[in-house]
């Protein structure tokens, strides 16, 4: 019961705290304008290069942008607490770490989903992309799965932020890795073999493939394996993140580096 309370109440408090800084002045340029502009940039590049169609770039880039809140909000869980000198208070509580950190991940998943869907909707409207009405419910689900897996990676990244001070730089580097390796703008088949192989182990890759197939008229059942793979990859990163958090928290206590900024 206590764990459930920590999961939901802690997550809700974290969400409200996040909106302490995520005001419209930050939210609108960062999470609404930027993803739409990224979609337009690559849609125009695709038109100029004569590669792919607008739908391909709308889905790829909208889902890619789900990674921004998922990566940055999870790392802010650690880095932001450290900057605010509250990390030591959080980590000295006797609360179980699993509900503590997973509770913080829940609103992040919601945020990632919203950002991706705003991107998809804006791309559809601005570029006159047609996605069949019947495909939308399945696409909504796939975007949830993609946001979950990106949040798993964000949790791992947050754990590393117990040691790495430049969370913003680190988050941007990972975002760039996802952009290049996850088939956001180039189909996996057209990527060099080694890049495609790396992409297979990253979040987004399978989610984007599933969403593209759904938008092309495939049934949810036919992309179930892709969605499950996406979720499994996210789970692997989340577990890695929790293990890393435990290990690095112990290290930080021993080396007295917890509050070092």
């Amino acid at each position: 019961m206590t764990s459930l309370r920590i999961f939901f109440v802690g997550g809700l408090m974290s969400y409200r705290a996040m909106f302490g800084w995520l005001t419209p002045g930050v939210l609108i340029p960062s999470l609404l304008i930027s993803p739409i502009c990224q979609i337009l940039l690559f849609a125009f590049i695709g038109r100029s290069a004569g590669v792919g169609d607008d739908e391909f770039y709308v889905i790829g880039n909208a889902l890619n942008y789900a990674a921004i809140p998922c990566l940055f909000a999870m790392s802010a869980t650690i880095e932001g607490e450290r900057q605010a000198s509250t990390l030591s208070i959080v980590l000295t509580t006797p609360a179980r770490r699993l509900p503590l950190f997973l509770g913080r991940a829940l609103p992040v998943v919601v945020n990632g989903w919203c950002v991706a869907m705003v991107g998809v909707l804006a791309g559809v409207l601005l570029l006159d992309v047609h996605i069949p009405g019947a495909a939308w419910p399945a696409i909504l689900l796939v975007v949830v799965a993609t946001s979950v897996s990106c949040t798993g990676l964000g949790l791992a990244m947050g754990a590393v932020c117990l040691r790495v001070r430049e969370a913003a730089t680190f988050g941007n580097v990972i975002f760039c890795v996802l952009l290049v390796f996850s088939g956001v703008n180039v189909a996996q088949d057209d990527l060099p073999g080694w890049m495609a192989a790396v992409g297979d182990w990253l979040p987004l890759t399978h989610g984007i493939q599933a969403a593209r197939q759904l938008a092309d008229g495939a049934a949810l059942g036919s992309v179930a394996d892709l969605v499950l793979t996406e979720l499994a990859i996210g789970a692997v990163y989340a577990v890695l993140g929790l293990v890393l958090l435990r290990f690095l928290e112990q290290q930080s206590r021993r080396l007295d580096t917890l509050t070092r900024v």
Partner: protein
Amino acid sequence: MNALLHQQWTCYRLQLKVLSTSAFEGFLAVLFPLMFATSALLVYRVQDDPDAMQYAGLGAAIMGMWTCQGVVASSLLTRERWAGTLELVVAAPVAIARVIVPVTLAMSTIGLYSVVATIVWMRWVFDLRLHIESWPLFLVSVLATALTVALVGFFLAVTAVRFRYSWALGAALEYPGWILCGFLVPVTLLPVWIQPLSWVIPTTWGMAAIRSAADGGSPWGDLALCAATGAAYAVLAAWLGGRLVDSARRHATLALT
């Protein structure tokens, strides 16, 4: 005159050191556009068209210049405010332009790193050798573009100062700049109603000059437009800077936090 040059040089050198050693403003300012350039080149490579690759390669090399100004220039004065040094900058017995321009020039220098890094990267990863007909004209065009980008940065720094989240605004300007300046997509491919926006950005003309120099044409017409629009930004920014400083002093809003 000597005092002016000494002040400009000292400010430029110090800021370049600060930016070069910053992971966010140095390393990431080069890496971020490089990764987007990589992604764009991967798209262009699908068709395996050498002309298209030359076009994309030139634009990819230059797009980092725009990135280097965006976030940093927009949040320049806000960061001074956070650090509690904005009052000192404003109270200094020199015009605010003389403090900001060397900083944005230092950012443009990081942009030049980005150009070199992207050219090396394209050669190494994509085996893409840019065909440049006239290296002297190409270098003149690149340097002129870097200079005018610094003037745009000056304008951004002054106009964004009243916006509390200016860094987010600067970050949001990154993609529109990449789209509008014709780095990776010809301006003529954009919707007709957007194209006038491209014409008022000096980097658009700088990019056109760079392409002309690379193709063996004359870049001077485009360079003249690049210089004229850049100068317009500088004049406007100097005027706005003076007005904003006066206003902030009059209304005691300098420490807007």
